[in-house]
């Protein structure tokens, strides 16, 4: 959870800035995509040297892996904001900061939501991965123990639990996002035109 929250808190603002400023984009975007092409698991040895085996390594890997979807989709959403909206805000007297907060952020919201859902899924995957490799409690650890005992049933039960919990967390995230003020995805075009 903490890993996902940190990743979103870094990913969304950098995505917005990078999507709206070609200068910021030129500096950080190539660098981020270079890092993105490294599979998360390849960081494991380095993380183990830095943080040892355990929760902090897990946290590091989750933040790293969950950051990219949040960043990339926020970036795309911010970049695709209709220029008309920005012009409209300007002529209604909005400052640049107000345009970011009142137009770009809500306008990019549908993309941001997609990114966050993917990020959360990845976070969850890395939690389990951490438990499979280092952390010795949790569902991942349970599966590994069961494997040692040769108990396939427990392994299967573990997998089903992981799936259910992943789905529940996704639904919970959507539920929370849909309660944010300014949320409008899914509210467009569903009802009849007056």
């Amino acid at each position, binding site marked *: 959870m903490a890993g996902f929250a940190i990743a979103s808190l870094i990913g969304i603002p950098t995505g917005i800035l990078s999507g709206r400023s070609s200068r910021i984009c030129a500096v950080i975007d190539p660098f981020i995509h270079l890092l993105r092409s490294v599979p998360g698991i390849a960081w494991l040895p380095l993380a183990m040297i830095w943080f040892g085996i355990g929760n902090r390594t897990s946290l590091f890997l989750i933040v790293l892996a969950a950051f990219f979807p949040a960043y990339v989709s926020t970036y795309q959403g911010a970049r695709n904001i209709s220029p*008309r909206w920005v*012009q409209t805000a300007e002529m*209604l*007297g909005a400052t640049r900061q107000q345009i970011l907060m009142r137009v770009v952020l809500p306008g990019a919201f549908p993309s941001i939501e997609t990114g966050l859902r993917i990020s959360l899924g990845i976070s969850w995957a890395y939690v389990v991965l951490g438990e499979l490799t280092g952390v010795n409690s949790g569902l991942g650890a349970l599966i590994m123990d069961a494997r040692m005992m040769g108990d396939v049933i427990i392994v299967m039960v573990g997998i089903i639990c992981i799936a259910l919990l992943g789905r529940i967390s996704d639904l919970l995230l959507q539920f929370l996002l849909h309660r944010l003020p300014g949320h409008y995805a899914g509210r467009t*075009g569903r009802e009849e*035109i007056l």
Partner: protein
Amino acid sequence: MNGADQAIRFYEVSKDFSNSPDGKAPLSVLHRLTFSAGTGEFVVILGPSGCGKSTILNILAGFERQSSGRVSVFGLEVGSPSSEHGMIFQEDSLFPWLTVKDNILFGPHCRGEKSLPDIRAYLELVNLPGFEEFLPHRLSGGMKQRVALARLLINHPRLLLMDEPFGALDAQTREDMQELVLSVQMKYGPTVVFVTHDVDEAVFLADRILILSARPARLSAVVPVPATRPRDARWREEALFHRTVAEVRHALKKST
């Protein structure tokens, strides 16, 4: 037509777009265009499509800069966009995540006004009473343009720029909207620059019609509209209206 009374001055204004993708010569959109408009005047710009009509509005609004020449609005050079110059676009420009009320209050909110104006008066003015809490996707095209108009009027702009605002509406709604624009202009008295390619619309609304040539746009004729204000829907029925329409069509044909 001179001195402090002038709302808009376009003097020898040219606009070239140099970043053509195929590396050809720069595309010249406006060529040394000169015109002016008095305070409170309703000017309609007519011309063939693609002749740079919208570019004129974009320059006046501060969205684009001219390549050469001078542009002043109320005696000041046009800098960045401001709430003094409001623009209505052809397509929907409402923020889909805000209700009608919050769309209209966007300007006052941004300025951090403590006592927000009463939006009911503005909704009544544009004939949409009771729609405060609706989201834009539940409104028809004509209603959206009414909200866009109310959203501008709440800022009390001195200059109203309209870029084929009713081009996407059906004929009946269009006529209603034209009458609405007349009544709004009578009430607030802003200077209006209105771009269209509909001759009837031009004659119905304008004090003066500027006819542009094909690209690069030059002023090819100016037709004053011989009708007094206030006007209403009956102006469309008069013989003088039809004579003026014929005259404008003729001038338009000669210009292309």
